[in-house]
């Protein structure tokens, strides 16, 4: 039995001398509690709705007023005025809007005639949570609109809301797929990026290449590119298998595949650059292992991979604004769920590229060329 005690004593003594590991094991469940607690089930807000008024009559203006009232109070959505339905629908397709409310030219006439006036809500239904909130908000709005100021002398046919879905129904497994592709890239980055350098340091292997005439930039670029290549392969595998499992319609459209490859490459490089930056001054190989769980929670859940970012509290929305996962997940959602072009993901690609450049530059500055 004393031998067993020896093992226990050894492990506890070592554990006591790894403060980072202890801190991380305690922080991890707290981080999960807070992040996951706010990541799911929040009320979706801050949506953007294009308002196309082809009528301009007084009843239509009432709809504007009611929309503005929602923006000012519940803040479920903000109406943005569009003169042209085509432009509004283009922005909807490119993900700049969550829905478009079209008030047709005969709305006021039919309203005044009591002839069942209709407005159309064309919505991006690739996010069921967003879609449900939007329809809920507009249903309430139309009910308020139809609320008579005084008891009517005759029953007129009330205004109705026609909901138009832009895309075929998106099951939750398809909704999760973009996040899983990003996660597969991240998993490979965790084992194939900056951590290799930390391992080399722990084993003394880095002395071998630090005495060669390689520059800091060349060395970091080499580590990051090799990590990115491995991560791209992981991303491609998950994209293919995941698309088949989730039943993504027409998954092997060559144009879409080409765009997906671009996003996978840019995402892989952004995440691997971030990881090298985080690990650039780390010497203890236990640190990366201890950090990955926390990092994973902080990056994945606030990104909108499992629930729309519009439902998060302010602090989590702030994380999601700088989180590279957010932009990668958004880009994959556009390509996988909506089959959009580069127009819809240009901003994501720009952010991820800038993120990579900044992370690489900082890593080069912080890298110690000596022991």
């Amino acid at each position: 039995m004393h031998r067993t005690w020896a093992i226990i004593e050894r492990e506890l003594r070592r554990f006591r001398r790894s403060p980072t590991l202890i801190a991380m094991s305690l922080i991890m469940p707290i981080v999960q509690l807070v992040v996951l607690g706010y990541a799911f089930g929040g009320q979706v807000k801050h949506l953007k709705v294009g308002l196309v008024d082809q009528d301009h009559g007084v009843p239509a203006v009432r709809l504007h007023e009611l929309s503005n009232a929602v923006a000012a109070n519940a803040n479920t959505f903000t109406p943005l005025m569009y003169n042209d339905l085509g432009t509004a629908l283009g922005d909807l397709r490119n993900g700049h809007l969550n829905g478009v409310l079209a008030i047709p030219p005969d709305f006021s006439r039919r309203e005044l005639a009591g002839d069942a006036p209709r407005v159309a809500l064309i919505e991006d239904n690739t996010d069921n949570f967003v879609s449900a909130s939007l329809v809920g908000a507009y249903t309430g709005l139309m009910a308020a609109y139809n609320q008579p100021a005084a008891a009517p002398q005759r029953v007129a046919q009330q205004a109705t809301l026609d909901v138009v879905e832009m895309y075929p129904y998106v099951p939750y497994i398809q909704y999760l797929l973009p996040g899983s592709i990003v996660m597969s890239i991240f998993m490979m980055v965790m084992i194939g990026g900056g951590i290799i350098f930390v391992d080399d340091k722990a084993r003394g292997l880095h002395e071998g290449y630090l005495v060669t005439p390689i520059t800091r930039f060349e060395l970091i670029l080499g580590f990051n590119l090799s990590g990115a290549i491995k991560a791209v392969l992981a991303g491609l595998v998950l994209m293919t298998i995941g698309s088949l499992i989730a039943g993504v319609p027409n998954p092997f459209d060559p144009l879409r595949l080409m765009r997906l490859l671009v996003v996978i490459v840019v995402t892989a490089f952004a995440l691997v650059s971030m990881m090298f930056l985080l690990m650039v001054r780390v010497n203890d190989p236990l640190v990366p292992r201890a950090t990955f769980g926390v990092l994973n929670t902080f990056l994945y859940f606030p990104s909108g991979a499992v629930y729309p970012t519009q439902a998060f509290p302010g602090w989590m929305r702030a994380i999601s604004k700088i989180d590279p996962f957010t932009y990668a997940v958004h880009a994959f959602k556009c390509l996988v769920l909506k089959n959009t072009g580069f127009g819809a993901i240009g901003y994501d690609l720009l952010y991820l590229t800038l993120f990579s450049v900044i992370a690489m530059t900082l890593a080069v500055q912080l890298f110690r060329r000596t022991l």
Partner: protein
Amino acid sequence: MKPAIDVRGIVKKFGDFTAVDDISFSVQQGEIFGLLGPNGAGKSTLIRMLTTLLPPTAGTAEVDGIDVIKDPNGVRKVIGVIPQALTSDLELSVYENLLIFAKLYGVPREKRDSLIAGLLEQVELTKWANEQVKKLSGGMRRRVEIARGLVHHPRVLFLDEPTTGLDPVSRAAVWEMVRKLKEQHELTVLLTTHYMDEADNWCDRIAIVDHGHLMALDSPIRLKASIPGTNTIEASFEDAPADWHQQLESLAGVERVTGDANVARIATDNGPETTTALMMTAAEAGVRVLSLAVQSTTLDDVFVHYTGRQLRDALQEPSAADRSVMVNRGR
């Protein structure tokens, strides 16, 4: 002819601890130069400064005429380094390890294969070229490192304790190889070791380093000649009287006696004569001689002379590298 290595007043401090304290020396081209000292003496720190792995706190050094502080990349191009730790990738083959380093050193593509083949032959690893390094013995791995350090035709080769952890046969093989390669590649070699016999046999000149100071520097023969006595007698006694030390000092030929009453280390310029006198004096005084050994003066004696202690005592102390880790962790 300019020296291959020129060290001028170099200092390295880790916090309050001074690992290398104002050391200066030059290594001539074509020399095998040994830094001799126990763990913690500052040898590895010194070699790491010369190979650009550590910035000196003060002073400077030139390798092949290039300043290690002003132009570290220039230095890296002309040096080959075989660090103390085995730094080859275990998962890669011998050939792949050499190929990667040939690329890191910018060896032109057309020269790589013939160069690697030649080096593998010189370190007698041709048969193992495609074997993963993890499958090789310690001695063979060390030879891979040596070949790797030469893959770009360096002018100066640094070896940090190249034979530590190897069996006597492998140690001899490594030394033989270093000497052969030095001739073939017209190299200057600077190495560290704490094996006195190796330094004695293979180095042209030796610098004895202890506690970060340069204690002595010369050829092994001159170093041995510089200390009193040509022989050393090591003897242990029982029932030695209080004045036994004084009696030993008065024996014929004795130049110096160290140790205590029961174990003495006697430096003499006439081993046989002193031994005879010692035995007779012991018999007269009723002192029992438990053991007695006579040997020619070794570098160990030189070390004792210059540092005041034996290498095996010094080996027990923490090394400068250990201390630097302690300082780093303490930050």
